[in-house]
């Protein structure tokens, strides 16, 4: 697509001697919702922070609306951040406990629109609270008076108040209960309809599936698969993506879809879809990342080795070698 909003090229982040993000490339179009999935330690959050330049990448470029944020002088970077907001995982910890939620949501306005009168600001904050499903009367309350789901809405309201072009959501539904989770996902779907681009970081694949247009799969600092959402869930190509999807515990769908079992039939739904047969990969190994080769090789059932055959006893022949990154 040519209306590219964000263009990340060869992005690399090092923590000391450790490379955490190791050469990431992807584009994000205006109005597009892209999911970023992967396990803890894969570098998802680090990638998000590097895009915002909340930490300094070692190399690469992050072009936002054609401007490389990594080379921006501080003042220009600040101006750019207006269009690029983030919502963090822990809804309570990311709000200042000593500020009313109205003050919290108004703060970006004070910084970026200092000309705005107090009354106009209050008006905007009230409208925003309503937009995220709270009421404008709540602006005088403090974060501890709200539930986790409400705090997350406040975090989203604060990010949205400047009408950013891109919203980065870092695990924003992970700490919420299921009944609340849906409300936040639906709020994001509304923002999506209003043309907002979202980078949605999550380890919850089911939520990603319902929300995103495209999905990036990250493993040990690299993107291993980029695919349209439906294609990724219907036919994952990378062995790691397959393992990840296979590991998701499934619920018996009897409650929703399946035909009622005949009386006397053995109860089956408790057993269906258990992850029993899953060939789940092992722990993310302390892999020597300076070595060449695929990061997933030690856990991959399809890995082939040029070293002596004895090293790789689990390797299976693969009929056809798939191309891993689809449109990377």
């Amino acid at each position, binding site marked *: 697509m040519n209306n590219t909003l964000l263009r990340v090229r060869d992005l690399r982040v090092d923590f000391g001697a450790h490379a955490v993000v190791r050469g990431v490339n992807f584009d994000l179009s205006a109005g597009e919702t892209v999911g970023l999935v992967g396990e803890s330690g894969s570098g998802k959050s680090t990638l998000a922070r590097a895009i915002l330049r909340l930490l300094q990448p070692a190399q690469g470029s992050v072009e936002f609306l054609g401007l490389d944020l990594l080379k921006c002088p501080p003042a220009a970077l600040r101006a750019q951040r207006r269009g690029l907001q983030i919502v963090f995982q822990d809804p309570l910890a990311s709000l200042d406990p000593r500020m009313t939620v109205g003050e919290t949501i108004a703060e970006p306005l004070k910084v970026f629109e200092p000309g705005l009168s107090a009354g106009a600001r209050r008006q905007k904050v009230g409208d925003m609270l309503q937009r995220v499903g709270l009421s404008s009367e709540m602006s005088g309350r403090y974060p501890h008076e709200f539930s986790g789901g409400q705090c997350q809405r406040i975090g989203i309201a604060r990010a949205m108040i400047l009408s950013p072009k891109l919203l980065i959501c870092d695990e924003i539904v992970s700490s919420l209960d299921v009944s609340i989770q849906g409300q936040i996902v639906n709020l994001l779907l509304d923002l999506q309809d209003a043309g907002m681009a979202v980078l949605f970081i999550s380890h919850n694949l089911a939520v990603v599936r319902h929300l995103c247009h495209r999905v990036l799969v990250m493993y040990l600092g690299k993107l291993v698969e980029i695919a349209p959402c439906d294609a990724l869930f219907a036919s994952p190509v990378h062995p790691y993506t397959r393992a990840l999807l296979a590991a998701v515990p499934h619920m018996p769908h009897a409650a*929703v879809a399946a035909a009622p079992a005949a009386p006397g039939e053995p109860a089956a739904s408790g057993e269906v879809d258990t992850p029993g047969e899953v060939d789940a990969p092992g722990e993310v190994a302390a892999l020597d990342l300076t070595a060449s080769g695929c990061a997933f090789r030690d856990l991959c059932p399809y890995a082939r080795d040029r070293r002596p055959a004895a090293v790789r006893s689990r390797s299976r022949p693969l009929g056809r070698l798939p191309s891993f990154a689809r449109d990377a």
Partner: protein
Amino acid sequence: MACATRSTSRTADMTATLSVDRLRVSFSHRTGSIDAVDRVSLEIAPSECVGIVGESGSGKTQIFMAAMGLLPRNAQVSGSVRFEGNELLALDAPALNRVRGSKLTMIFQDPMTSLTPHLKIGTQLAEVMVAHLGVSWKDARSFAGRMLERVHVPEPQRRLNQYPHELSGGMRQRVMIAMSLLCEPSLVIADEPTTALDVTIQAQIIELLRAVRGEFGMALVLISHDLAVVAGLADRILVMYAGNVVENSIAAELFRHPRHPYTAELLKCMPSVSGPRLARLPTLAGQPPRPGELLEACPFAPRCSRAADRCRIERPQLSGSPASQVACHFPLTA
């Protein structure tokens, strides 16, 4: 489903492994006290696997913290918790210590904070057997190594000499599981054992729990907020809401015919990686009641689409067949 059938037959000659009767747990604070668990009764049969699901604050953990005597000082407990026929709530600390950690064990959510950071894995495991079984440190250590092998910890002998921080999260949870099994427990309580783990590791730990259950034959309580995690393991599932058990059903039955409106809503709310992709996720409007609210009403009434006047004045009690009990005046019919 042999276990499930066993669990439902409440014959007098078979003692339940754990029997909780009208348990109430409340926490006092400056302005009064709030009930976290409100007159809950439940039974766990020998070698049965029971899933306890509910959202945060529903009281699912507090029932078992009360059983283990692990509640904070400001907690008041009433009712009864009998473990293999013995009243746990009446035991003093030394007597309780003989039971917990040996016959009644618990696996916690975060394996990092539940292992002692400055003791080697081998020492922590051996200590359990030295304390409870009176064996020598040498024997205990060698048994600990064998136990690590049984829970598929690679290189068990090396792990004995390592500290918790040297192990990954999944490995630490395996160590916790090994520790819970050392004294051949009758009941293991696993409180969100996979919540802190990645999904691939979660699948492995669920598999491991399934395997050790078959191997050791103990009863297992699996506490989780995630119905899908419980689905693969539990014979029976208890759904909790606001300190109450609202449904207690055979697992297969619960998924096929949820009877409490809350269970049905919860099942609908869980997004799935298969099935149709939805334009919007189903949600449950409102919030759970704050503890202390709604003492005489159905706690779910304010969020329930089926609620009638009766629900707002009379608390429904858990009733029904052994296969499916529900606390609702107007349960969903199959």
